[in-house]
């Protein structure tokens, strides 16, 4: 995924002589790319100019060839230094000058070697092990006093994403989100990826999980059967949601309603508003969702499918929750940690009809994981697409329509 790169500097009368233009042209003509990270133009004709160029290539060999070609024009590889480390002053506290991460693949230079930062995530810090041989992201709250934290900007490389090799909807910059685009081909591409990932998973390959983060609108809008089918059929392996999605899913099973509305008839039933509370109370009495499924109280729907298929479910609580269900993690930092722990191996994320869970999940995911954000409110997919990934696809559409169409693409007969 990541390209190799090297930083070079050019110094002297490089503007009027067209030396800078020649070096940049050479990089492009040879198949590399560049970022001009710093250009200082001399204020007078006599004063020299200075340019700092990050040269990137798809392979180490091509990079070496490019560096060799631009070297005679004065482009010298910049002297590199290790990234500075400072101990955390207290538990839960970064050193003042800590490096704040992006969600892009990142390397840090330790003892002269470039090391890949593990578990890439945005808006956290980087902790280096005592031996200085490994680096991993760490959220602010998890820092322990004395942990070695990367500080400053030296010795850190942020690598841009390469466009994915697959020629599908994810290989184009989908930054703009429009409600007026046809969805059919996008959903077909997502289905193609999911089928390939399921095959990988059945073949026991790593990194083949599909995550779905969803809101209760999936149930209200009629997407429950389609989602349950997707889970039963082995297309989804991790589920992030809140108290409501789980409660209304089981309410639908026990009472045939979702927040009191008869799902089949679409009208309120007498005392229907109590149904989700009665559902939550019943599950609390049993002790857990899993137990409710295993004992035959809940036999169909999303939660039942998750238990049967061993899907990892993280239920994150919020301040408007009723109950909540016994499985809900009400400490939001603990919920964030549980979500983070479920991410390794995820290669596709579907964020459906939940602003809260979509944004939280988007923040935890590295940019290398393709995401699909589906919401009737264009602001949500736009917010996710703005994360600057080639692989964030936004769909402005109803959750149930999306899930039903996706399931049909994958063979659901309904």
């Amino acid at each position, binding site marked *: 995924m990541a390209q190799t790169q090297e930083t070079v500097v050019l*110094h*002297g*009368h490089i503007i*009027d*002589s*067209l*030396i800078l*233009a*020649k070096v940049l042209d050479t990089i492009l003509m040879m198949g590399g790319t560049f970022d001009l990270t710093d250009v200082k133009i001399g204020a007078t*004709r*006599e004063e*020299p100019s200075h340019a700092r160029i990050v040269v990137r290539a798809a392979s180490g060999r091509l990079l070496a060839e490019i560096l060799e070609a631009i070297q*005679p*024009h*004065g482009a*010298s590889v910049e002297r590199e230094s290790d990234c500075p480390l400072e101990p955390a002053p207290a538990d839960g506290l970064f050193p003042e000058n800590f490096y704040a991460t992006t969600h892009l693949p990142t390397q840090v230079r330790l003892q002269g070697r470039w090391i890949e930062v593990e578990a890439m995530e945005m808006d956290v810090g980087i902790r280096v092990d005592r031996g200085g041989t490994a680096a991993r992201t760490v959220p602010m709250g998890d820092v322990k006093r004395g942990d070695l934290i990367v500080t400053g900007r030296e010795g850190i490389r942020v690598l841009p994403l390469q466009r994915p090799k697959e020629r599908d909807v994810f290989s184009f910059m989908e930054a703009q989100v429009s409600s007026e685009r046809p969805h059919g081909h996008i959903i077909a591409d997502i289905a193609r990826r999911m089928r390939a990932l399921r095959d990988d998973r059945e073949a026991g390959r790593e990194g083949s999980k599909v995550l779905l983060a969803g809101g209760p609108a999936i149930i209200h809008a009629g997407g429950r059967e389609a989602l349950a089918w997707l889970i039963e059929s082995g297309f989804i392996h991790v589920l992030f949601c809140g108290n409501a999605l789980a409660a209304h899913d089981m309410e639908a099973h026990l009472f045939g309603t979702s927040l009191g509305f008869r799902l089949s008839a679409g009208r309120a039933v007498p005392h229907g508003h109590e149904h989700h509370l009665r559902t939550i109370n019943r599950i609390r009495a049993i002790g857990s969702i899993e137990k409710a499924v295993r004992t035959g109280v809940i036999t169909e729907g999303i939660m039942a499918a998750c238990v049967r298929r061993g899907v990892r479910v993280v239920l994150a609580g919020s301040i408007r929750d009723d109950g909540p269900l016994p499985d809900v993690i009400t400490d939001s930092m603990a919920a964030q940690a549980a979500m983070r722990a479920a991410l390794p191996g995820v290669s596709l994320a579907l964020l459906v009809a939940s602003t809260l869970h979509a944004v939280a999940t988007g923040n935890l995911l590295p940019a290398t994981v393709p995401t699909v954000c589906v919401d009737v409110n264009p602001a949500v997919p736009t917010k996710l697409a703005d994360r600057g990934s080639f692989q964030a696809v936004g769909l402005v559409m109803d959750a149930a329509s999306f899930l039903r169409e996706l399931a049909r693409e994958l063979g659901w007969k309904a």
Partner: protein
Amino acid sequence: MSRLLVCAPDYFRIDYEINPWMRLSNAVVPERARAQWHGLMRLLEDKIGALLERMEPMPGLPDMVFTANAGVVVGRRAVPSRFRHPERQREESYFEAWFRDHGYEVTTLDKDLYFEGAGDLLGLPDAWFGGYRQRSDIRAYGRLSEIFGREIIPVELVNSHFYHLDTCFCPLSGGELLYYPPAFDRYAQAAIAERIGEARRLVVPESEALRFACNAVCVAKQVVLPEGCPETIKRLEARGYTTHPLPLDEFMKAGGSAKCLTLALE
């Protein structure tokens, strides 16, 4: 008055091949070389009115005759050359010693920063230009620009027959430039054209460029150049220059002509 550093061809011969003009089999005829060199000196002293500073030739250093490569001199400051080829590196200490002995303030470049003197660094009123890639290293110009406080525009030389800037680029005293564009890459051609308007650029035809028409010495309105360059002469005379063609073919055997045999000390 123009002061020029020269060195007699007592030991001039082809001892090695470090440019496409040199052939060990194409030996110098010492008598002819001496006669041609003395012809050039007489012309420079008597007709052009230049003041010649003669340095002692050294046995075993055949190319010392090409004093243009001794270094570069601006006012009282001299920067001696750092030759790319080991064959010529032994000349460096003699040139440096000459500058010191004659009261110049000498600034030396790092050992591995190749720079071949006024062979590669030439000035016009608009800018100085530095040839690179064949002999001098582009990085030398950053350093020289600091030393002299002047803008130096590096230009890439792409044809090994024109291995020094002074083989294809000759600033004239009236602000014109006599040059051979194909010796430069397209970026350098564009950079030169950007600084020197079309009316001031005198392009030398290929056949005469290969006779080193651009390796000319210009003092006031007098131009000394190798013989056999009628088109170049026409262009120079149209601009009011008086031309002095001379036979210098013995020195062409080593890839040098009039300009290579002199170093301007002003």
